[in-house]
């Protein structure tokens, strides 16, 4: 039986690239994303005893990672979700982007907590149950957030068609 601490270290090492992509999708800067990953790992290992159930290492670590990314945004006051107007503008200005890149840009600019739900649901392919665990919200709340995020994306798709 490997040590629980070593298990966590191994989990972190083998999933580091996923963590970086998640972090990057919040802070949208290479340096900040590296900082987020690094400090999330430090916090996780320093408080490894808070992981009661070793099976839950994934949701436990993502929770720390997402919180770290959000607090980095708060500290840097970088959280500037675009107004509807600006979104439309972005679609036209960034016409050189393909649609997938535009959609990604839009997702990273969604207000919280909608952004987190989309990142975890569609990028990290988690279940709504896992997202509920990570965000500390109940399942119905997660569903509501998901639908409101999808509504925004729907609007984007429709506008892009025109």
């Amino acid at each position: 039986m490997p040590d629980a601490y070593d298990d966590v270290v191994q989990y972190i090492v083998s999933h580091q690239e996923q963590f970086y992509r998640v972090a990057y999708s919040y802070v949208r800067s290479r340096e900040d994303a590296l900082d987020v990953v690094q400090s999330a790992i430090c916090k996780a290992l320093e408080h490894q005893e808070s992981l009661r159930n070793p099976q839950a290492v994934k949701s436990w670590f993502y929770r720390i990672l997402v919180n770290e990314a959000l607090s980095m945004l708060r500290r840097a006051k970088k959280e500037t979700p675009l107004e509807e107007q600006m979104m439309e503008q972005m679609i036209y200005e960034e016409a050189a982007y393909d649609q997938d890149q535009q959609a990604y840009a839009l997702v990273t600019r969604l207000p919280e907590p909608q952004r987190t739900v989309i990142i975890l649901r569609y990028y990290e392919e988690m279940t709504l149950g896992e997202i509920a665990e990570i965000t500390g919200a109940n399942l119905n709340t997660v569903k509501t957030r998901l639908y409101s995020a999808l509504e925004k994306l729907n609007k984007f798709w429709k506008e892009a068609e025109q």
Partner: protein
Amino acid sequence: MKQTFGKETYDHIAIPAELAQRVDEAIASVRRENLRRGQSRWDRSRWKPLRVCGAAAAAVLLCFTLALNTSMAFAVEMSKIPVIGPLSRVLTIREITVKENDVTTELKIPAIELDSGLSDTVNARIQSIADQWIADAEAEFAEYREAYLATGGTEEEWAGRDMTARVDYQVCYETEDILSLELITEKCWVSAAQEHHFYNLDLKEDRELTLADVLGPDYTQICNNSIVAQIEERMAQDESISYPGFGDDTQYEGFTTVTPETKFYLNAQGHVVVMFEKYEIAPGYMGPQTFEILP
């Protein structure tokens, strides 16, 4: 417009070359911090008494203490006899470095040559331990690689990795009649842990020596008194050191007594050194614990 969520863009976010280094730094900095603070708050929760072996074991130290004498309690006696000329010789019989796929194997295998020729069993044992170690290391690396690729890592990203399996040795002590050899085996990849095996052999009788053979029938009392005194001394000297079961630290049971199974070897002075693995009697950050039992 196609209902895209940007997943393709997301999956193609470039991974900076220094990510792995930053991750390793984070892990190492927590390790250092815990060592520096030497406090067991976080460590205690993962402290498991008597956890001796582990799949992640990264280093095994093997110590063969070979005695060519038939008498009991010989070790202490023999250490006092001036060396006339060694009867035993340690030779490197195999020294190779192989880099295959992602794994570097470095082998330096010793063999013991004796006039009596009795070392064949020991040599065979060294050989089988080394072979087993390399086979285990390769299997673990392969498993890790598979897990890495299964969790989204790519072949290109994997290519930069270097993992090493190593077998080496050193002669600790050699007199006319006693040879103490340490076989060091290491696996270097993600995390490090240690495991120690000691074989104290009486070659003439072709059997393993026990603590009772070396220290006499009262060995339990002799060892326990010495170990308890040393634990108390260590705790008095450094407040960051804490042994469960001693001082205020009564939440877990720590050292209670040596048993016939307690690991030991003979050091350069011919003294018994009792060894407890990491986690066995102390929190993990303190590592394996050794106690020299003075005659």
